[in-house]
């Protein structure tokens, strides 16, 4: 049962990282233009 004391916080922590990363990406405008990035990839500059 002692395993729980670090496994549950670890699970929650990993989930939180994902959530924060998503909210950051959303705020940063990463989802504004889903098609453009695919096209710009082909640029050779």
């Amino acid at each position, binding site marked *: 049962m002692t395993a729980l004391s670090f496994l549950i916080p670890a699970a929650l922590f990993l989930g939180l990282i994902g*959530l924060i990363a998503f909210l950051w990406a959303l705020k940063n405008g990463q989802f504004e233009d889903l098609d453009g990035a695919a*096209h710009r990839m082909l640029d050779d500059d």
Partner: protein
Amino acid sequence: MNVTSDSPTGTQNIQAAPLASCCEIAAAMDLADEVIRPADVASYVVAGKDGISDLHLIVRNMHCPSCVRQIEGGLNGNPGVLTARLNATTHRLHLRWNTAQTDAASLVGVLADLGYEVSPYDPVKLAASANTDDKDLLKAMAVSGFAAANVMLISVAVWAGLAQDMGEATRALMHWLSALIALPAVAYAGRPFFRSALSAVSHGRTNMDVPISLAVLLACGMSLFETTRGGDHVYFDASVSLLFFLLIGRFLDRSLRRKVESAAQNLLSLRAVSATVIGPDGSYVSTPIDSIRPGMSVAVAAGERLPVDGVLASGQTEIDTSMVTGESLPRPTRIGDKVFAGTVNVGAPVTVTVTATDEGTLLSEIVSLMEAAEQGRAKYVRLADRMARWYAPAVHAVALATFLGWFLIAGASWQGALMIAITVLIVTCPCALGLAVPAVQAGAVGRLLKAGILAKSGDGLERLASVDTVVFDKTGTLTLGQPELVDQHDIALADLKRAASLAAASRHPLSLALRRVAGPVAALQSVEEIPGQGLKATDGQSEIRLGRREFAGVSANEGLAHDGPELWLSENDRHIQFRFNDTIRPDAATVVSALQQDGYAVELLSGDREDAVARIAKELGITAWRHGCTPQDKIARLDTLAARGHRVCMVGDGLNDAPALAAAFASISPGTAADASQTAADFIFQGQHLAPVLESLKTARVSRSLVFQNFTLALAYNLIAVPVAASGLATPLVAAIAMSSSSLVVTLNALRIKLGHILPEFHNDRT
């Protein structure tokens, strides 16, 4: 802006080169369209500090991946350009530059040289209020998703612990942890539902959000109570996953609406160009349309679309009114004649004095007809709302009955009775119903967009599905609205080229038609255009004329009889006749017969002359047709059909069709249609083909049947789940499994809309 039309032979060159890129071909197809001059955008430039200016543009003809590179590369190469960023999803381009080094006109010129048509827009007007709503929903969805996953993780452990032997203390810890995650998440992610439920209740109504909010709040409250007294069953997992599923449905619905809105805004702002106002001192100023007042003088160059209603103040020209009246030939116009916004000046440069749209003009009549017609349509109630109307009260009644039954009759404790009532609320909660409609409609609209059809609203899709009669307009709908040479093979190529070399100087529709078939020719020098008559030029010592019969000096009985427009070429007493007809869309006959085979009644209502309408009707196999229809006649006919119990889909493009489009049960417009028509129509399609009409009808019917399948699935689930829950057998585990599986089944079923094939013609059209 179409640069190819600036050089007389530009179009022919492009047609002769089979390897031209997609965008050049797209530009060539729009040849007859209005020309947006680089100077037009000047009034949309926002000047900032430090000599830095901003401009927002919509790129019109952008279809392929290389467009992004071409546009951004072409602009960034210019000195002074700080930012050139193109959003490939919305087709909106943001430009920022240093005013000292370059200006808006030259940058737009660069785009024009690349073959792109752009139009400016005001980013403040298209403000992203909808956008922030969208983001809030997405954030709520992320938070509830996170909470649902973690609470479920803990709940699975608890369920396993109930079967084996988890200690009291451990279970209590798990419950407290769940509460810690679930309560803040519900408080945050539930707001969209709580807000809507609160406003419904405060207005004395009930909607879907009332049982949702009740279930979530009661479940959380009861679970917290159970946790404090160390009970076995908590419903934290059910309440957060309920929110998560519902938020997915809500987000799909919302993002569908936004996608459609932004596409529609792009379409409409294409016309938001400015007019060239002539000041009292004779100066020319480019001014946005909304700051133009009656009494101002506006200059309209040859080939330009008229920006305003007014009276011709100087000059003599021909006006192409096909967009307004459906007439396929330009009308000669003199000083004092009334002219309308949206028509095209195909003759010589003129000045127009702006008039207010007073009563009695064609436009104001059409606008008032449209307003009257639209009121009828507002009565339509969406399927999901019709469902909600009886579903929400039914859910409340069942939950209340369960509580009273257990508390009063079965003699359970009030906590026990309330707990069972809450499980009823949870399992009946419309997860599947909330997903049933938006998942299908989002898929359907996406599928239509791929085929070049813009569905303007989800309920348009629902209305189109129940249509049994299709009524077409003629000019611009069944036909392309542009004349085409009939007897091309009877005319010597040399004569054709000779005529085209004169026609190269003119933007008259018949001249454009000649140039299309003649191939590349060198334009003759010093061609003179006499509005309403024709073109003349001298080559060596002989005079060449191209134009009307009388203008070319041809006697009345010469040549073949013809009921459409004709041109005569005369040179050294040789007379050659060119006969034209309006081109029928390439697949019109196939589409009409396919519609008839599918059991639709097909009718043709046109404002054109009897013989022209009869010819087209015969060619396409339409037996029910009427000619010479005014906008009122068209509405009257639609009303008659509606009174007989038919549901009519109107397909039309002209301004004269706009009231009928608004009055019909559902309506479709081609992308070349007048402003008002595109606003009134539910669907707008692009390209030369008529097949999108067929595809829209088919998609609408498929999506309706999928929506009904989804309702059936959700209903079947409820028929099983409600008795189980009401009898007190539903543990949190059962509720969680039932809820997730029904949502999954409904979503997977909705995805089938993507499987159907899209008619192959579209790909040829848009490559």
